[in-house]
């Protein structure tokens, strides 16, 4: 019989790794952090997927915002980002994002990134929603792929140990300080890593919703890991719903349909053939901001003017076929694969959960509220406020990835052992999954529907309470691990429940509509800039919403 006490694990963990910096997550932020940290000491990069294949970075199509031209300016980029974020952003973080984004772009260029350029050898830029200047740099419609490929080429040339297809299941604590992480390898074998500093770069988690643009790794594990380690999270209710996700076929629901479709002249029509945006934003029409368009589409569907697949039509068939072929090749290819020729017939679209603006509270150096733990990328909060601008996420990964990696690299050496107390209840948790009785999918499917219905685009106290109750009841069910290789899935299920709970509690705490967060049961008189509320915050030691002074 196995005795899963701390001492047993300590003696039987398959491998023990010791390093200076442990980076968790190999997307844009994690890879950038690891590159930076490796200049200071032994760096381990752990990834649930193969390095660079996880996360949303390789899927990002649009671009990377950077102030590169004389006609543009940092104050303009700052103003756009704050306005887009409904003035919930942490101004210090926005300032850094804007100031350092061009420098990080220069890093990528030096490392061989193949961005589109102009005839005069400048990085090409295009306009994106909510911005006063066309400052979005791009590599065709595979910008994230290009950034990831560049970072992976660099990882291969550095002395960085990569633990691939290895799932971090818990951060280890020594006193109040994070001292590494416990992980499961591909076979479910436990592996302990001690580190002087740990960087959390696990990306987003909108897979807790029924319909999401995220990859399979977008389960929000980092939010849960950080929360359990005692970190404070802010603004978890701020979930961006992208207006245009696929609705058909069933298994492609949520797949992102890029904003460029509307940028190129795509029209939104309801089932009655009405170009309905004139009732929501007559000035900007289809090119309004993401939150407005998402709400408009959702309203049309809710009020019975949706298509047979419960979407609205997004039509480019009035554009010349060569324009579609040249400007929207990936969209054309993807829809053709599903039997729809967008040159001749409209797409059907509906909103899809896209990005979590909230996350671990960080300082400008990427330090979380827990010593020894840093965070960057989508798992960190505060940069994007209540609504993220397209093109700011990729910039975020590079700017704050570099900062978190550098801060972790500069962290002081710690004693070279993992205290037995740190291993705590890990063994008991795994044993519980082995004795579990519920197939993980049963919990996940119920959770996703409950979140979509109760904590989606429109929220009320009642709908949020219902969702919260479902989450609480699901937490009492124990997912089953049929073999050790299924243990990681069970940990993820619990993490998803944790993240869902954080979103719901944040949404209940914020009694106002702001950016992506819409409370239909609350009416407020103020504009976002005058809101008396700051961040919502949640940690194991308490929760609340910050009050703030606003100029009259």
């Amino acid at each position, binding site marked *: 019989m196995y005795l899963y006490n701390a001492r047993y694990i300590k003696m039987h963990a398959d491998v023990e790794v010791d390093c200076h910096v442990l980076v968790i997550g190999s997307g844009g932020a994690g890879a950038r952090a690891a590159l930076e940290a490796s200049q200071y000491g032994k760096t381990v990069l752990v990834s649930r997927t*193969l390095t660079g294949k996880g996360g949303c970075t390789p*899927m990002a199509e649009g671009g990377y915002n950077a102030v590169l031209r004389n006609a543009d300016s940092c104050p303009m980029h700052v103003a756009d980002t704050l306005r887009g974020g409904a003035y919930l952003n942490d101004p210090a973080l926005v300032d850094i994002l804007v100031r350092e984004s061009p420098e990080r772009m220069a890093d990528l260029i030096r490392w061989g990134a193949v961005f589109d350029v102009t*005839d005069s050898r400048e990085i090409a830029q295009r306009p994106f929603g909510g911005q006063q200047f066309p400052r979005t740099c791009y590599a065709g419609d595979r910008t994230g792929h290009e950034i990831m490929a560049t970072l992976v080429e660099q990882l291969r040339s550095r002395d960085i140990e990569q633990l691939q297809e290895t799932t971090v299941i818990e951060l280890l604590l020594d006193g109040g300080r994070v001292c590494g992480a416990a992980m499961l390898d591909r076979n479910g074998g436990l592996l302990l890593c001690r580190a002087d500093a740990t960087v959390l770069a696990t990306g987003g988690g909108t897979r807790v919703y029924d319909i999401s643009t995220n990859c399979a790794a977008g389960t929000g594990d980092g939010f849960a890991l950080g929360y359990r380690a005692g970190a404070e999270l802010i603004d978890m209710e701020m979930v961006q719903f992208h207006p245009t996700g696929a609705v058909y076929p069933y298994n492609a629901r949520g797949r992102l349909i890029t904003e460029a479709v509307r940028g190129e002249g795509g029209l939104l029509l309801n089932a009655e053939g009405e170009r309905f945006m004139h009732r929501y934003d007559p000035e900007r029409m289809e090119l309004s901001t993401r939150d407005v368009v998402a709400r408009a589409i959702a309203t049309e569907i809710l009020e019975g003017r949706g298509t047979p697949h419960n979407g609205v039509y997004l039509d480019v068939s009035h554009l010349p076929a060569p324009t579609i072929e040249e400007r929207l090749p990936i969209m054309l290819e993807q829809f053709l694969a599903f039997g729809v020729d967008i040159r001749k017939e409209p797409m059907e679209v509906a909103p899809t959960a896209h990005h979590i603006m909230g996350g671990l509270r960080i300082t400008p150096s990427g330090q979380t509220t827990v010593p020894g733990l840093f965070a960057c990328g989508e798992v960190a909060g505060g940069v994007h406020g209540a609504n993220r601008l397209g093109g700011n996420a990729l910039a975020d990964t590079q700017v704050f990835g570099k900062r978190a990696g550098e801060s972790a690299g500069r962290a002081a050496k710690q004693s070279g052992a993992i205290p037995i107390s740190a291993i705590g209840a890990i063994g008991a948790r795994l044993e519980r999954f082995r004795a579990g009785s519920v197939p*993980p999918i049963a919990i996940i499917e119920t959770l996703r529907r409950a979140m979509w219905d109760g904590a989606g685009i429109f929220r009320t106290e009642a709908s949020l309470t219902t969702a919260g109750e479902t989450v609480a009841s699901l937490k009492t069910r124990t997912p089953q691990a049929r073999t050790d290789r299924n243990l990681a899935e069970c940990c993820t299920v619990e993490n998803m429940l944790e993240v869902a709970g954080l979103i719901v509690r944040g949404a209940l705490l914020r009694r106002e509509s702001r950016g992506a967060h819409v409370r239909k049961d609350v009416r407020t008189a103020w504009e976002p800039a005058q809101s008396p509320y700051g961040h919502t915050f949640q940690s194991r030691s308490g929760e609340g919403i910050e009050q703030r002074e606003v100029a009259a």
Partner: protein
Amino acid sequence: MKEGDMVGITAKVSRFNPETDKEPHFETYTVSVHDGARVLHVLHAIHDRLDPTLAYRFCCEAGQCGSCAMRVNGEPVLACMEEATDGMTVEPLRLPVIRDLLVEVEGVLARLAPFEAGEEPEIPSKEEIEAIKPLRDCIECLSCVSECPAVDVASFLGPTGMRQEMRIALDPRAKHDRIKKAIDEGLFTCTTCQRCRDVCPKKIAIPGRAIEKLREIANREGLTLPRHQAVARLIEETGRSVDRTKATFLEQVPEVVEPDGPVRGEVGFFVGCMYNGRVPETALDMIEVMKRNGIRLIIPHDQVCCGSPLIRTGQTAILPELKKRNIEAFARKGVTTVMTMCAGCGSTLKNDYDTPFTVKDITEVLTEYGIEPPARLDVRATYHDPCHLLRGQGISGQPRELLKTAVREFVEMPSRCCGAGGGVRSGLPDEAAALGKQRDDEIKKTGADIVVTACPFCEFHIRENTDRPVKHICTLLLEGYREKDRKRNRPAKG
């Protein structure tokens, strides 16, 4: 959300547990999935509802991360993009299997060339960016590596390894010339069979865009294999890549060959070095077939090597001269269609030339005109797809159609490079022989009496590696005609 109609899908999935199994085996599962489900969704359904031990890799589910490459009905695909079909088989890529559909990829990925950056950020020109871009679409799924015949028998990092080397070679920001490293990684082992391009989910033409271009760089730096250099010298001196050891085809035929009966058509004939100098008998057989079927042949005697051996091995300096001579030779005769019977020449004329005439393979010409049916020979035959015909020209149906009219029984074998192409036969004969041997194994499995093909390189090379007779399709047709004549001339019994 309205849910799509559910459909039942039965799939045969390859399972392998390294702790208990010696060999992978198939398990059959039936699951209910939504209409339009992809292969990946079927695997999810099996994993979630029937057997959570099924191991497979996936992530973005949108065709952009390259995690879920696997073989469906034998062909590498991305499981997240390929529509599931009832009765499909799902197997891992042909790479070392870790478990079920999980294959070992980290070793290869770690060896892909890193980018060694210079100090100053320097923005490349638009032209430089445009040149690199097509090589940058790679999502490192390793489908190409898994299907590459050279990887199988030689020390070769694989197609995407060469793609990465070329990407760096094209980038003005890269610090070092890595051509010697590319050679160490197996640059010369590629037979240019194009299988990698066919299985690439992003359709990157690695042989043309990377391997042949890297070989050109190697050539400029004096690193071309000595045997390839000898071929280039021969072409430069004689206009031919094959030594004259006997009377050539062109020495034996007039410039115009009239058919026996009425003229149904006319084509120019591009003979190529192999049929001219090494196996002229096959080309002479072809003449008989054309005469019998009413097709006039125009055969300019001043035609020369098409240049394929130079392109494949990166020695392109005299290529423009060869192209000019060949185009002029046929243009002067006023032909509108030029026929090839060498798959390599045909692929080169079609893909690397800009010709004022149409180029067609002989199997296209014969099926378009339609031929007199030959007598069926009392043999079981299999067909070897020449790479430069199947992938270079997209021709697979026509030779089979012709072949089936001439034999008692036709049996397929899996198509794969025989090892003769890309300069490998001359440059790395051991590798070529190893691939030839694999062909022999497949031939044996079919139980065929004869092997039919449509390329002189394949014909010559496979003949060296099997004990079964190897014939060009024309030779087979001619034998069928002779058999027919024999039967007709034999007095009827009774």
